[in-house]
């Protein structure tokens, strides 16, 4: 381990996240644009739990194909073109699932019997899942209501605990994540099931959690730098560099079980129910980690820079060794020193030599006075 990796490992990075905010904004903007176009063009592939319908599911027993199932539907005068028929293999058992609009009870019964006869099982062994259209609409409405209530309450909580601008930043990140996750479902045409909704909500919670931990650091630094003339951009940068390792580690720790669920659970064990769920989670967690760095904090920075407190210092930012200086001492370099330094090292991603120990530790750390807490 050397160079960049070592600095990352030891939390000594000085990446100018805030200065590169537009990279994140443009990338997210593109993704959001694609999402919205896709939502208008092909919408979402809603499962029967949301729009109502009937689903038959049974063992294939090697006796029925998708075409044969389709012809059984036609014999019963069911509009087979709208039917979704798929085979699912879970372990040794291969199953077929036929998903239809809501049927008359009589038709439903005869379809069920015909299917059972074809495969050679009892009608009772064909499982039916039925959802009425009104129930589906109700479920969707409930979920949207719950989501909105959740966002409002959490925003209020963040505004109360930290400040309103942080609530705005967190909200932007969460909405961003949900939209992009929905976009992935729209583009890929994966079916949206209640499990998907659960996954979306997880993503939302996770993204919010991640953002709050970063904001907690920002809040801490804001207080630490309260008496110095440090531009807000520096506070954001310093906080993000300080929490970078935490964000990465937590994301790894959160993604590993999900990845195991995806690869082992659905790949090796063949539990289909888990597959799409894990996939949605994986996408969402990646987005969540990304958005707390590239959306939440930059939005907060943009808002705070325009506030009365920080507007005088707007546009100034310490990068490279300057950032390390701010991070360690809590005061910015003098303007002249900064100009010289900026000319020397303009890009923090170029591995700059680690600043001399004396520069960072110009004030040796001392134990905090007891009276301050």
């Amino acid at each position: 381990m050397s160079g960049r990796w070592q600095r990352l490992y030891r939390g000594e990075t000085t990446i100018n996240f805030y200065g590169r905010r537009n990279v994140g904004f443009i990338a997210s903007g593109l993704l959001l644009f694609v999402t919205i176009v896709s939502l208008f063009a092909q919408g979402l592939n809603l499962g029967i739990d949301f729009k109502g319908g009937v689903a038959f599911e049974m063992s294939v027993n090697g006796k029925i194909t998708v075409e044969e199932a389709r012809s059984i539907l036609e014999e019963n005068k069911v509009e087979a073109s709208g039917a979704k028929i798929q085979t699912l293999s879970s372990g040794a058992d291969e199953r077929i699932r036929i998903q239809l609009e809501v049927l008359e009870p009589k038709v439903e019964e005869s379809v069920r019997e015909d299917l059972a006869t074809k495969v050679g099982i009892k009608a009772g062994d064909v499982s039916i899942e039925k959802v009425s259209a009104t129930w589906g609409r109700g479920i969707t409405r409930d979920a949207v209501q719950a989501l909105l209530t959740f966002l409002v309450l959490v925003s209020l909580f963040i505004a109360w605990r930290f400040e309103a601008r942080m609530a705005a930043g967190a909200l932007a990140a969460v909405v961003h994540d949900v939209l992009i996750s929905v976009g992935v479902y729209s583009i890929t045409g994966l079916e949206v099931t209640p499990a998907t909704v659960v996954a979306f909500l997880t993503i939302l919670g996770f993204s919010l959690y991640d953002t709050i931990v970063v904001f907690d650091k920002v809040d801490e630094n804001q207080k630490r730098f309260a008496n110095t003339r440090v531009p807000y951009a520096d506070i954001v940068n310093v906080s993000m560099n300080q929490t970078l390792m935490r964000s990465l580690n937590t994301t790894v720790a959160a993604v590993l079980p999900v990845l195991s669920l995806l690869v082992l659970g659905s790949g090796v064990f063949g539990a289909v129910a888990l597959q799409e769920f894990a996939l949605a989670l994986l996408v969402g967690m990646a987005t969540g980690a990304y958005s707390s760095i590239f959306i939440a904090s930059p939005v907060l920075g943009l808002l705070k820079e325009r506030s009365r407190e920080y507007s005088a210092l707007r546009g100034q930012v310490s990068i490279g060794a300057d950032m390390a200086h701010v991070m360690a001492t809590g005061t910015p370099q003098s303007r002249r020193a900064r100009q010289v330094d900026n000319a020397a090292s303009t890009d923090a991603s170029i591995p700059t030599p680690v600043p001399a120990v004396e520069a960072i530790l110009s004030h040796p750390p001392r134990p905090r006075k007891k009276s301050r807490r």
Partner: protein
Amino acid sequence: MPKRNLLVSLISILVVAFGLFLGNIIVGNTPSLGLDLQGGASVTMTPIGEYEEAALSVAVDIIRQRVDSIGVAEPEIIRQGDTVVVNLPGVKDQQQALDLIGRTGAVEMRPVLRTAENPENTTTTTGAKGATTTTVKGATSSTVAQSSTTLAPPSGGGGESRGRAVPQTTVPVATTVPGTDPETGLAPGQTVYAGQKDGLIYLLGPAGATGEVFTNEATAQIDAGGWAVSVNLRDGAAGEDQWNALAKQCFEGGEGCPSKQIAISLDGEVISAPVVQAPSFNGSVQITGSFTEKEANDLARILQFGAVPVKFDTPTVQTVSASLGEDSLKAALVSGLIGVLLVLLFLIFYYRLIALVVVAGLGVSGLLMWSVISWLSKTNGLALTLSGAAGIIVSIGVTVDSYVVFFEKLKDDVQAGRTMRNSAARGFDSAWRAIVVADTASLIGAGVLWWLTVGSVRGFAFFLGLSTLIDMFVSYFFTRPSVLLLARTKLFNNGKVLGVRGTSTAAEVA
């Protein structure tokens, strides 16, 4: 923080976690599995039209009794607002399940043609739902009708002042059919119903009235030393007239009602079969007999809501095959465990020795989680569903994050030259603040989802909330004391256990 307090906290949580775990094992509580992990049928029901809040809980009780009667292991009947979810694990034929719970709670009044002891069930238990047993007992032992069920207008409007004084009326009941098979010689319109619990079989005539004749005001009260149920009749043709026609028929004891008894049945099961004491009733009916308080209340409740049975729509029906459920469970378990293992390996690689605290901490969290789920499974019928399991797997990330936040702060401080012991206390304070804020947001989310949604999302919310609470609990009572105590040991007072060169850097500067 004195060392003793830390030790007390650490030992307490270990005792609590292991104690709860062993306690649950000894009592035999294990987490019960939801339908999607076990296989079975699930039916969601929503009431149609107007209904009363109390009527709904009666309807739920009735459904519960029916489900119990077919012997489904661990049925789950959950009310979520207006919605009733009935989960029947292990039931494969959902049609049977639907038929069973789809019936509306219909109360009917039928004349009793004959009564007989059920030959298969002669040992009579205490009459669970009324005093029908005692009707016969009263007849054979010919005691005063203290023990017979009778029907009378409450203020003696038309008949005998109180039905108790006429024990003779019950005598023919027992004597007409002594032990004969009631199933022979059925006339059209006659039905046999068995009051199994009372060991009696009733041969009933066509329904003379339904529960609709009563208003939904029925009360159980103590009357002349025993429990009695009185219920009001509706006015006019739909109520009083219909009831009186039936009462008159039975009071006269003619061919249509030789026993002079009217059977009150709920969904075909005879609840009570009182003897009619008057040919006509004016506004209200009183049923007396040797009821216990509970029996009287049950009867009153049935009469009360028999008039307004809640009709249900079944908007969703779902069956999961047992094999599919088992596969999912196995997959979720194995991949979950492997996932946790990977996370731990990663943390040990990154944080070195101190990551052992995470291993122990996750163990404590796991024990607590298992105990709470087992306990709630037993007491509240909670079931672990696939989405719940997913919530738990996801919460691993959140739980581990509490440690990561803490250890990162520790590293920062140690790197800046502070001693491990000093950093541990400072690090926890600031990490704890972040954990509380972030976990509170998670709890708000879990709470909102739990209140506002039904089904799988609700299950997910519950387990997310639970694991968040356990996370906070373990962070404070386990992680804090163990790291703080370890930081005082010689071995740990060195940045190397964290994977940093902290103390050595400080030494160079000095």
